[in-house]
């Protein structure tokens, strides 16, 4: 237990998303922490600034690349305000929007409100026209790129021959029971239930599923975990949460992996069923699918 557990014993915000459920007490605690990092109240009174050791160049570079890669892989889930509903065709992994987002959003002005309304009205017409023009020029000058997860998966396999592939095997869970129990399908698991592909050099991957049951995102979501030989087995890398729509449950779906941390040597991919938004540490009670890396 940390001091914060005692500090906010009844505050569920501490158990969820870092943004959701933002409280005034947290803001006060963060302001205090800044003072202590700066050396204490007396130091800050003399000059309201802080002197810190810069982030080591190697670490800074790695983080810049990681965030850039994350942005590239998740163009539709960016911090950007306009992306929330621009998910490409097919199911993609959602940002871990754990339980507090709505309450946090209600504490802030609507995202668009950050831009003065008068400016928006004044320039929106010009921007729309300019945007359309640029989009047209871009379309003419550039061939179409892979936009669906299925296309991006194919592209990854074509561009990285070293990408590893692992077949899903069914666990004991209702979410996959129907597909696992089918006796009329003689194909091996990797053809029957799907697979996962992962490019180590690109830190990018995709999961393909057949027969995974549809979920109600307000009740539960699927969450991917990546076990890494370089890390403690108790703490697999969170690969993000995703949903299977009822319309997709009978067909094949491809979902992009959203690894939250670099993966060194993946050994096992596991799908769990968790509360909406996913969890930080899974109880692993419901494990519909596993894929052991050969």
């Amino acid at each position: 237990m940390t001091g914060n557990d005692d500090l906010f014993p009844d505050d569920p915000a501490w158990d969820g998303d870092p943004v959701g459920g933002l409280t005034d007490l947290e803001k006060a605690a963060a302001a205090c922490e800044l003072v202590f990092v700066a050396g204490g109240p007396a130091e800050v009174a003399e000059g309201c600034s802080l002197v810190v050791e810069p982030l080591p160049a190697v670490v800074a570079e790695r983080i810049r690349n990681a965030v850039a890669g994350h942005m590239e892989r998740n163009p539709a889930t960016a911090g950007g305000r306009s992306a929330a509903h621009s998910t490409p065709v097919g199911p993609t992994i959602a940002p871990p929007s754990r339980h507090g987002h709505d309450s946090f959003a209600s504490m802030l002005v609507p995202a668009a409100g950050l831009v003065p309304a008068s400016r928006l009205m004044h320039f929106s017409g010009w921007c729309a026209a300019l945007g359309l023009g640029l989009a047209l020029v871009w379309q003419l000058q550039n061939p179409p790129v892979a936009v669906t997860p299925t296309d991006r998966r194919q592209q990854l396999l074509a561009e990285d021959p070293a990408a590893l592939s692992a077949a899903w095997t069914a666990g004991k869970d209702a979410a996959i029971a129907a597909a696992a129990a089918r006796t009329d399908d003689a194909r091996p698991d990797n053809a029957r239930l799907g697979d996962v592909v992962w490019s180590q050099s690109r830190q990018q991957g995709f999961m393909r599923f057949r027969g995974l049951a549809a979920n109600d995102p307000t009740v539960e979501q699927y969450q991917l975990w990546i076990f890494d030989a370089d890390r403690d087995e108790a703490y697999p890398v969170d690969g993000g949460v995703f949903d299977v729509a009822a319309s997709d449950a009978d067909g094949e779906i491809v979902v992009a992996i959203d690894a939250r941390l670099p993966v060194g040597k993946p050994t096992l991919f596991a799908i769990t069923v968790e509360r909406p938004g996913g969890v930080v540490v899974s109880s692993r009670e419901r494990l519909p699918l596993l894929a052991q890396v050969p």
Partner: protein
Amino acid sequence: MQELLLTRIADGDGSAVPDCVSRYGGLVWALARRRLGNGADTEDAVQEVFIDLWRSAARFDPQVAEEITFVAMIARRRLIDRVRRRGRLPTAASLDGTDGAEVADRAAPVGMRLELGEEARIAAEQLGQLDLDEQRVLRLSIYDGLSHSAIAEQTSLPLGTVKSHIRRGLDTLRRRLSRRTRDDRETKSSESPATARRVPR
């Protein structure tokens, strides 16, 4: 006033991400090392904080919190999550309040300067008005991340006193910061476009 990088990120300006890492990397690095020590896990934690900042940028509202405070809040939560995941308590070495200070002291001559903002200034003023026991208890709780019982043990103060110092200290600061936010909003809303003055940069 410094340019707001999170607003740029929220507007889809990818070039603001490296700027954000440059401006706040040192701060997040210091906070992470304080809680997690050195090691690959600390680097991962810093990376995780910046990914969350990127994801959260659209929710940043400068009228609710200053950018640096928002960054510190995100970092605090991510780091607390990580400490919990590790199931690790702060080490004995960190309890004496010296190792983090050493980090700051050692960094000072070659460090980078970061403006703390008005909210930290108010916090410093508020903390400065507390007696030394109260200040120490808040530091052990917020900065060192100790539980109430560990603080009571370390300071030889009754557990109830520790709790009330923390609750009262933070609650008073919370009210002061809220009042400032409210006053700021009222001031801004009362400034008509005709009377608002532009401050040359």
